[in-house]
């Protein structure tokens, strides 16, 4: 457990200046990832800049029917916000199916997006891991990889992204708003999570000292009937083996008019299932169509003996989630 300096930021500008001006520093939000990985020796900040007092916890309506979620809003509060429950019930479910109530009370929405993988080789602080120590190799490729990704993998990393709510956010085309040393910018959620490729250590486009200040979720009428289905090894308080965010609109002829689908637990990033969405639109809203769409999405999955079960598992989960949203 390395020594730490600590400073409590009073303004966003102070927080950004403190981290961007100090190489070995990091923001401290809920701490549920940062403190855990610091104690394990996986991350090694010399200074933590506490952003918990910043006025970024509000959830607000934005023009056009969307919602702006402050980066410091806690998972438990967002999950139960009346606007989130009404407009994006699948997102509320994703939040409530993540972690435990204690962790949801601590964890911030901005921090959730920045949480690190649960890959045991990443977390042990010693095994070769390209995400933790670039160039050392990936221990999971031929190791214990039952929980690992089958989509978006590379020969350098097959770790899954652990977030549930991020699965909903990519399906909803949310936008991540930041303030950094070079000013403010808006990053579509779909561009925020970077697949491992040759640089699994680079997980998002944030600069050092760039702080997530809000997440904008646009008005997505079809999401008012969305669902989040999560399957895991325990009944509760566990990361997903497979999860599905689904929102479908069905026309008068029983055909899928709109589809929003995203997967958790199977991708190196929260996985927008665009091929499945394209496959569904115009097809009858039936289990056969849902299965065909799942096949389409999973056709180039790269599996290993231990995690090959995730292909049929994900397919069944997609069929089930789609069936539940049209009921």
């Amino acid at each position, binding site marked *: *457990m*390395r*020594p*730490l*300096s*600590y*400073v*409590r930021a009073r303004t*966003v*500008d*102070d927080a*950004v*200046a*403190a981290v*961007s*001006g*100090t190489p070995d520093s990091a923001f*401290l939000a809920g*701490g*549920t990832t940062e*403190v*855990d990985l610091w*104690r*394990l020796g996986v991350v090694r900040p*010399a*200074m*933590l*800049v*506490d952003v*918990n007092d910043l*006025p*970024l916890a*509000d959830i*607000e309506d934005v023009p056009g029917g969307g919602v*702006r979620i*402050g980066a410091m809003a806690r998972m*438990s509060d967002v999950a139960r916000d009346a606007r989130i429950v009404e407009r994006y019930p699948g997102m509320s479910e994703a939040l409530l199916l993540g*972690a*435990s*109530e*204690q*962790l949801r*009370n*601590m964890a911030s929405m901005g921090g959730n997006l920045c949480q690190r993988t649960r890959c045991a080789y990443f977390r042990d602080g010693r095994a070769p891991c390209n995400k933790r120590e670039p160039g050392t190799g990936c221990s999971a490729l031929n190791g214990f990889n039952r929980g690992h990704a089958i989509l978006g993998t590379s020969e350098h990393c097959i770790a899954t992204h652990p977030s549930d709510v991020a699965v909903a956010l990519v399906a909803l085309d949310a936008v991540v*708003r930041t*303030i*950094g*040393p*070079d*000013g*403010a910018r808006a990053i579509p959620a779909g561009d925020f999570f970077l697949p491992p490729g040759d640089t699994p250590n680079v997980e998002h486009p944030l600069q050092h000292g760039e702080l997530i*200040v*809000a997440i904008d979720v646009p008005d997505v009428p079809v999401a008012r009937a969305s669902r989040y289905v999560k399957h895991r090894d325990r*009944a*509760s*308080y566990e990361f997903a083996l497979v999860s599905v965010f689904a929102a479908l609109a069905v026309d008068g002829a029983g055909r899928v008019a709109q589809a929003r689908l995203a997967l958790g637990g199977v991708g190196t990033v929260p996985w927008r299932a665009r091929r499945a969405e394209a496959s569904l639109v115009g097809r009858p809203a039936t289990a056969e169509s849902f299965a065909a769409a799942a096949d389409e999405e999973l056709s180039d999955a790269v599996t290993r003996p231990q995690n090959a079960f995730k292909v049929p598992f994900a397919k069944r989960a997609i069929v089930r989630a789609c069936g539940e949203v049209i009921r």
Partner: protein
Amino acid sequence: MGIDRSTAAKTAVAGVRGPGVEPAALTVNGATYAIEIEPRVSLLDALREHLDLTGSKKGCDQGTCGACTVWVDGRRVLACLTLAISCEGHEVETIEGVARDGELHPMQRAFIEHDAFQCGYCTPGQIMSAIALLREGNAETDADIAEFMSGNLCRCAAYPNIRAAIRAVRDAADDGPGGG
């Protein structure tokens, strides 16, 4: 929310504390204590090692077991993943603070009446979670109780009795004042 500011002012970092020992003031169960801690000290270690409040337990020290559950500003959180220094200016409540005037809290009594523990190590965290659960209002069904207590593991698997204790306090509270 001030999220559209175009640039951040470049200023020296003021108010940095540590990495050495720093004076800090922690408010726990209504009393404020002056202690000297390094910023890296967790709230759990500050409670146990500096304030001798050893009711909160260290099970996993990595946020997976719930034995260290305490309340900060009335919300249940994990003391092991909380830095003590970040709690300055906030109200911490622990298992030592739930009894009133020498009387056990109704949830403590219910845990005894329903034999809701065997080894007892997880019990302070279970009770802090259980009281908060009823305050949160998410304990309508046994399934709700199981789901919203899932952050507190019990290796003795006293779960049925824990749920019975929570049900008893919930139902007593429904019947009238004084239940908790």
